[in-house]
């Protein structure tokens, strides 16, 4: 053992220096955001070759207290620090650049819960579209790559969520998602039969993610005209190529997590994904996993296009339940695992801990980022650096938690009003809690056809005054074919509640259309509220900079506002339901009543009954014939 451990550093150093040369060649053309924390010895080797831009970016994003790592520690464990970037770089092909980053953000929430958000990003500079068949896959999962090229997908966003994000208690999530499954896809404008492709795509994705996405059909698919714009590069915004569907009823469990984990380059064997023990991930208040695929700029000038696969997993742990009142957490308490190393394939592997609320914590590296209109301070732990793990070779963060109140700028809720099984009213409430700014929001409502909306009853009121939407897109439903789609642009006055109400009638379904549990009720998916919310601090608009992953998903166009999307809770609506306990008896009884009762009653009422003369005997008839011949009246 000892001999090997002495031998391997020498070998690795040689390997590293070789591979770095290759990397430098590659980066000269398109500098990907490289690891900001190369270990001391590699830095010493490549001071001139490392691109200057990357260093500058690091400075921008870590302006405060960029603490130099102490050389003694590095010297103590040089073997562990060197390999990760080295191996990444060495195997990157010269023609197609691939890059994998992983990140975990931990944020103590104001309600006393802990929010952990994993983000994994694979960037691949390739082109699925231009006819040539992509057959060599390395970091990018082949199953998804084939889906993209076969179905000409331009953007694909899919999320599986168990639970509801409590905006009032938790603030905004980094990546919002509605309860259940959500899927929205932009197709290339070369696709002719979008509906057919969509149908096939959902079935394929259903297999990939072990989810009931095959239940997506025309009755729950809509084409939003404004709410879902492409997030990647590209200028086609014709919503004919967009399909959006939610399955609010979808239950998310380990069978969805396993295929999701398999898409990661390291699986759950190494890196941050080690923490994903499903037993713990589902022992939480909120669980959401998502996959986002989109084309992004490959370089700052946006000359080359690369495909971005972003896998995110958001979990909120309830410390009240598990902590027995003690307000402290650690990675081990949350995940029942500790980290041992970074994913060897990852170019960066970091843990960000939000320490805005407890600034007294002293950590190795601090970073500030503007997230969702708020400047937050994070302490950064770089897993590619061995120093992070210390001498124990394991890493376990622990931090205490502090409480204060929270007022999210925008949140929304929805409920069904009324009673009885004939009509009802959907109320959607949107709260703008900004003290002095009003801002417009886009509300998207997709309601199944069996709730027949009365659009003439649509009202929008803010501060008990009528608030006329400046844009309304309404597509009426067709029974058993397509749902209602209602989109509107509403201006929310400052510090107000805007209420959107619309009445509906509950349809009586055909008896085969009921679900196996009809008395549970029928789900109506979440409304989507998308808004550009005025920001208190200036947002960073430069997209190509190497920002932390969690702050760089939605592109920001202006410095003064940021984009957020809020989902309301789904609705559970009871429809008039026949008694299914004994349908056979009911059918038999009804048929009997109709046939026997109605038939004979009708007979009795419409016919006139008279006493019939008994028919004369044969002798009498003959006698009558004779009498007739004789001209005498008959007997």
């Amino acid at each position, binding site marked *: 053992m000892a001999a090997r451990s002495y031998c391997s550093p020498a070998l690795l150093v040689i390997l590293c220096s070789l591979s770095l040369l290759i990397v430098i060649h590659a980066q000269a053309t398109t500098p990907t955001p490289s690891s900001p924390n190369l270990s001391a010895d590699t830095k010493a080797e490549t001071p001139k070759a490392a691109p200057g831009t990357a260093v500058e970016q690091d400075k921008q994003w870590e302006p405060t207290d960029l603490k130099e790592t102490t050389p003694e520690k590095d010297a103590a464990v040089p073997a562990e620090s060197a390999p990760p970037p080295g191996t990444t770089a060495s195997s990157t092909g010269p023609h197609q650049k691939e890059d994998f980053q992983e990140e975990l953000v931990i944020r103590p929430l104001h309600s006393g819960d802990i929010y952990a958000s994993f983000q994994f990003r694979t960037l691949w500079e390739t082109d699925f579209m231009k006819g040539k068949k992509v057959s060599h896959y390395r970091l990018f999962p082949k199953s998804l790559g084939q889906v993209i090229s076969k179905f000409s997908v331009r953007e694909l966003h899919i999320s599986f969520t168990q*639970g*509801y994000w409590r905006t009032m208690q938790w603030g905004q999530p980094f990546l919002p998602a509605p309860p259940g499954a959500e899927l929205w896809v932009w197709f290339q404008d070369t696709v002719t039969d979008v509906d057919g492709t969509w149908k096939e795509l959902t079935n394929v994705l259903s297999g990939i993610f072990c989810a009931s996405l095959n239940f997506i059909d025309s009755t729950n698919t809509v084409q939003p005209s404004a709410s879902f714009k492409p997030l990647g590069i590209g200028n086609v915004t014709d919503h004919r190529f967009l399909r959006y569907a939610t399955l609010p009823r979808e239950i998310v469990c380990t069978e969805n997590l396993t295929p999701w984990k398999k898409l990661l380059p390291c699986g759950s064997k190494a890196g941050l994904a080690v923490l994903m023990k499903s037993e713990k991930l589902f022992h939480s208040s909120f669980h959401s996993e998502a996959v986002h695929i989109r084309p992004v700029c490959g370089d700052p000038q946006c000359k080359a296009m690369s495909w971005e696969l972003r896998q995110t997993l958001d979990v909120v742990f309830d410390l009240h339940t598990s902590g027995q009142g003690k307000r402290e957490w650690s990675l081990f308490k949350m995940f029942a695992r500790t980290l041992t190393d970074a994913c060897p394939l990852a170019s960066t592997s970091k843990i960000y801990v939000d320490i805005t609320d407890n600034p007294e914590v002293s950590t190795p590296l601090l970073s500030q980022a503007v997230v969702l209109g708020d400047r937050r301070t994070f302490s950064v732990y770089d897993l590619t650096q061995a120093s992070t793990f210390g001498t124990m070779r394991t890493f376990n963060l622990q931090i205490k938690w502090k409480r204060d109140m929270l007022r999210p700028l925008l949140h929304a809720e929805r409920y069904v*009003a009324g*009673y009885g099984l004939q009509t009802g009213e959907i*109320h959607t409430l949107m709260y703008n809690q900004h003290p002095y700014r009003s801002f417009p929001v886009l509300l998207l409502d997709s309601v199944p056809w069996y709730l027949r909306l009365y659009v003439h009853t649509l009202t929008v009121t803010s501060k008990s005054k009528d608030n006329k939407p400046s844009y309304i897109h309404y597509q009426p439903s067709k029974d058993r074919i397509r749902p209602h789609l209602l989109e509107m642009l509403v201006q929310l006055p400052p510090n107000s509640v805007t209420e959107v109400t619309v009445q509906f009638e509950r349809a009586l379904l055909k008896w085969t259309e009921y679900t196996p*549990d*009809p008395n549970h009720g029928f789900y109506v998916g979440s409304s989507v509220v998308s808004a550009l919310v005025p920001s208190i601090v200036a947002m960073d608009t430069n997209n190509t900079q190497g920002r932390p992953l969690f702050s760089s998903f939605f592109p920001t166009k202006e410095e003064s506002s940021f984009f957020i999307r809020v989902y309301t809770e789904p609705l559970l609506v009871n429809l008039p339901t026949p008694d299914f306990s004994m349908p056979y008896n009911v059918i038999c009884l009804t048929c009997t009543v109709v046939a026997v009762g109605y038939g004979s009653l009708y007979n009795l009422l419409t016919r006139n009954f008279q*006493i019939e003369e008994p028919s004369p005997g044969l002798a009498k008839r003959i006698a009558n014939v004779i009498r007739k011949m004789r001209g005498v009246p008959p007997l």
Partner: protein
Amino acid sequence: MGLLSDPNRRRALITLLTRLNAPICVVCYMAGVAWFMGLAFEPFTLRTYMSENAMGSTMVEERFPAGERALATGREFAAHKRKAGGMPVDWLVKTLQARGLEVFTQRFSRTLPFPDENKERYMVKGTNVYGILRAPRAPRTEALVLSAPCSPGENNNQAVGLLLGLAQYFRNQIYWAKDIIFLVNEHDLIGMQAWLEGYHHTNTTGMDWSPLQGRGGSIQAALSLELSSDVVTSLDLVLEGLNGQLPNLDLANLFYAFCQKIGVLCTIQGKLQRNDWDSVSGYSHAVQTMMLMVMKQASGRPWGDHGLFLRYHIEAASIKGINSFRQYKTDTTTIGRLLEGMYRKLNNLLERLHQSYFFYLMPSLSHFVSIGYYMPAFGLLAAILFMRALDLWVQLTAPPLPPEEGAAHVKQSSPGVLSVLTPLVISHVTGAALYALPIHFQQVAVEHFPVSETEAVVLTAIAVYTAGLALPHNTHRYKTLHGWRVLKLVAVLYLAVLLGCTALINFSLGFILALTLVPIAAFVTPHVPKVLSAFVLVFLSPACTLLFSVFFFQELQEVPVSFQEGWMLFLSVISQGILDHSLYGSLVYPLISLLVYPCWLLFWNILFWN
């Protein structure tokens, strides 16, 4: 049907029916009453059983440990309640928040149409406090409610304490799939009405309430807890809700199952179950229990805070702790465990409670009478009306023997139908007056007579009711032979439809009304002795039925009253009925005044036809 399509046999059948009409009616009436009384006999009833799969087979463990702490919280609540002189809103909000719930409040105010003298309230202002325990990984689509009223005086402090204790204990459990709402409502039913209207954003009774800030989706079931002592001897289950609605029988089964499992004495209508069904006293005990349920259901009032949930299709029941002089006591921990078990099972529900019966009577907690068993009792009474109607119809259409009389009959029949209209309109106008005048004229009455508002309302109602008897109902323009028959035919069919519909919705009310009104409908003609019949008619009128019901109810509850007290109770029941209608939307008062009373007036009119 072949029987009817043969004219000879049809004629024979009709002759038989008309000739034996009176005996058949008497037999039907006796049979109906006998059938009804037989319902309480145990061999004729079914044992209760759990129909809902999700609650039947799954096992839950009850581990609630903190009964003593809950009582301490209850005492703390009592202290704060005394200090605040009402609902200690701030303290409750703080306490619920400390237990890790999302806490919201709702203010409401309501001015009653006239002062409620039983509860001494007129202008009601209050606040409801509720905390929502969010189920982990649930999308806020379903909820369960546990409520405890904040009552004046020293009542129900233990209920609030136990509610807070359960909230704390439930918060630390991971298995919840539905949000649980812990509600402390002020001014009992008025607060509950405000909260439910706020939750469902409806306004049926014109109450002022502030909108709710937090919701948990569609409520699947609710329990209301009333507990006024540290230990109880038994728990009483109250099912009767607004307009005689009942929760699904599975909720009662659930309660019974857990009482059996944990070993708590449980009662219904305050009556323990007895095992000696074959003895006379055992049978009469069952009859008493069932009759109490019938009387309560017929009243159409909510008999606990749960009663208002039923309108929203939420299965709900009240659980009342009773502390009597028995030796055997149950402590709060055990009650907490019972509730925990019930909530865990309700939490397991996949669908709303729908498997079991919604229409039933309970002669004991372990036995029930389903709609299929009790409806024949009513059917036998209703059959009398149809027999009488058939008889009248035959009399009206029978071809009279002399031909000239037949011609006269054809001439008379058209004014006969018209002449029915006048008494119909007059009686219904009287009914409308009975419905509207008491509340609208209370101001005038108070100014002119030395009475309080409540007395004014009740006395106006009685005055209008009595005045209706004296009104001339008939213009007497057509002194026809058959006129009263047409009117009686209409009245009998009207009564049959009216009672039939009432019995479908609220069997007890329909049956009690049928018991008294059907004999009237059967025997009244202009030719019976006037004075005696008038006396019988008044004796069996809806108001007198109510008076007897009051005495009977007191008798059943084993607190008999003197006539004077009974009369006072009768007056207060009338005012409560009117209040129930305007506060909670109970339909009994409008039903009686707008439909049943006019119908009865028609029979009164027939008696005085000539």
